[in-house]
């Protein structure tokens, strides 16, 4: 799915949050959006997800303007504790999006179990989310997003509240999923290293208000990535520095 933002603007009352954003994400690309906190990254995702109508400009998917929540879209939120439904088992959480497909219960459960296995949670289906660690809960949320085979996946700082080790494991899981499913992914983060490690391309937003892209950088790293080797590559270090300078802005760079 090709995602296109045309001079998108967004505001809350008088406060301009996003200003004049033009961006095209080609089919199958993993785009990382980086920016300091409060720059409107989440607002950007909410707008793309159709949860909030665009104030100015437009969002379109494969040429069709987004007016409500688009088909084939899935979202992973940062706060897994709130985004999962604690009163449902892990399996029922994951199977929830399948209801609208009109599949029989047994089939939904089977698909849920299969996707849970894929994210490394085989056997956890009958437990409740709050019985799992944070990393495992976020895996559940990822499974719930993947179960409908979305062609557009939005991720709002999905690993922001996890410890370093868990975060690296999940980054690799994401890369694996992206390689095999080929969905278009917009991945919002404030972590510069993460954006370079995960992304095919990194877009940096300026600090708010009236946030807009200040850097649009293709990531020229080999597709096959590895936490230790890739992060040690000179290209990785150079890209990270470039993104870092853009995030810090002109003030801190001199």
């Amino acid at each position: 799915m090709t995602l296109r933002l045309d001079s998108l603007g967004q505001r809350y009352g008088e406060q301009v949050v996003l200003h004049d954003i033009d961006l095209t994400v080609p089919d199958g690309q993993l785009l990382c959006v980086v920016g300091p906190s409060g720059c409107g990254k989440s607002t950007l995702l909410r707008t793309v997800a159709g949860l909030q109508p665009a104030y100015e400009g437009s969002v379109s998917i494969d040429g069709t303007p987004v007016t409500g929540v688009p088909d084939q879209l899935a979202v992973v939120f940062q706060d897994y504790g709130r985004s999962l439904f604690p009163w449902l088992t892990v399996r029922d959480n994951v199977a929830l999006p399948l209801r609208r497909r009109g599949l029989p219960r047994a089939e939904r459960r089977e698909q849920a179990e299969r996707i849970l296995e894929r994210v490394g949670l085989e056997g956890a289906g009958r437990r409740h989310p709050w019985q799992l660690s944070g990393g495992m809960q976020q895996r559940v949320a990822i499974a719930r997003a993947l179960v409908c085979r979305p062609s557009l996946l939005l991720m709002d700082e999905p690993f922001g509240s996890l410890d370093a080790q868990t975060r690296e494991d999940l980054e690799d899981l994401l890369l694996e999923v992206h390689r095999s499913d080929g969905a278009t992914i917009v991945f919002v983060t404030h972590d510069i290293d993460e954006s370079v490690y995960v992304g095919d391309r990194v877009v940096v937003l300026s600090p708010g208000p009236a946030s807009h892209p200040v850097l649009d950088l293709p990531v020229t790293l080999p597709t096959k990535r590895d936490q230790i080797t890739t992060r040690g590559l000179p290209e990785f270090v150079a890209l990270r520095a470039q993104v870092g300078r853009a995030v810090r802005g002109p003030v801190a760079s001199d």
Partner: protein
Amino acid sequence: MRGSRAGGPKQATATARNRGGGSGSGGGASRGRGGVARGPGNAWQHLVLRLAVLVLVLAVWQLAAEAHGSVYFPPPGRIAHRMYELWFSGPVRRVFLTDAAVADVLPSLGRMAAGFGIAALTGIALGVAVGRSRRVYALCNPVLQFARAVPPPALVPVFVVVLDLGTQMQIASIAFSAVWPVLINTAEGVRNTDPLRLDVAAVLRLHPVERLWFLLLPSALPRIFAGLRLSLSLALILMVFSELLPGSANGIGFTLTDAQSRSDLLTVWAALLLLGILGYLLNTALLAAERRLVGRGRRTA
């Protein structure tokens, strides 16, 4: 997160929070905490202690009443015996219920169940309707607070005039009084659904019924039960009150006034004891239902 919801119907909320202080688990985080703070040995100690207090109170009462020898304050042993005689000494095939129990206790319970049932269903349904929209909630809130503020027994005369004496009037009084706490608490609970979860529901494109069933009702459930507990105690009060009116033909309340008119103080006390026990058992049953339903969905983080 849930505990920080102040505001709204203050009295209703405050009373609901205070329930079952000593009864161990019940709510949210205590699932995790209870295990740490209170081991199995401690739980036994706690139970024994509670029973000891009960026995002590009864013993003091018994001794004091016997020493005083007043006809107005019979000792608990005699009250319990009268209770047994009156209602629970029947044949085995009728689960020991006597004719009097069938004639008075069961109709009372039946009316209360009907009134409470109607109140619970309407309260939850209307509460969801009111709570789903911020606007409707804001518009309805003053009316609801007003309706709740009217002391329920004061409305009984209105029902007597409109519906005449009898079962219909009694059920209507119970239902009308008990509906407000469930309604208000359900509305408040639904209104406070986590906005992120509403986003999740939108992104998963749940249709309205699924959203109600998988999100709104479960997340409002603790509040719904808080409302139900208040409603239950109101239902019990109204059950008795509606039977105290002259013209009532049966019921525990009727037994009370009837015994009083015959100066049969022992039966009055027995009826009071029975009401206390019924209230306690009903509340315990509701708490058990709550623990079963709400306990599953508690988050710890």
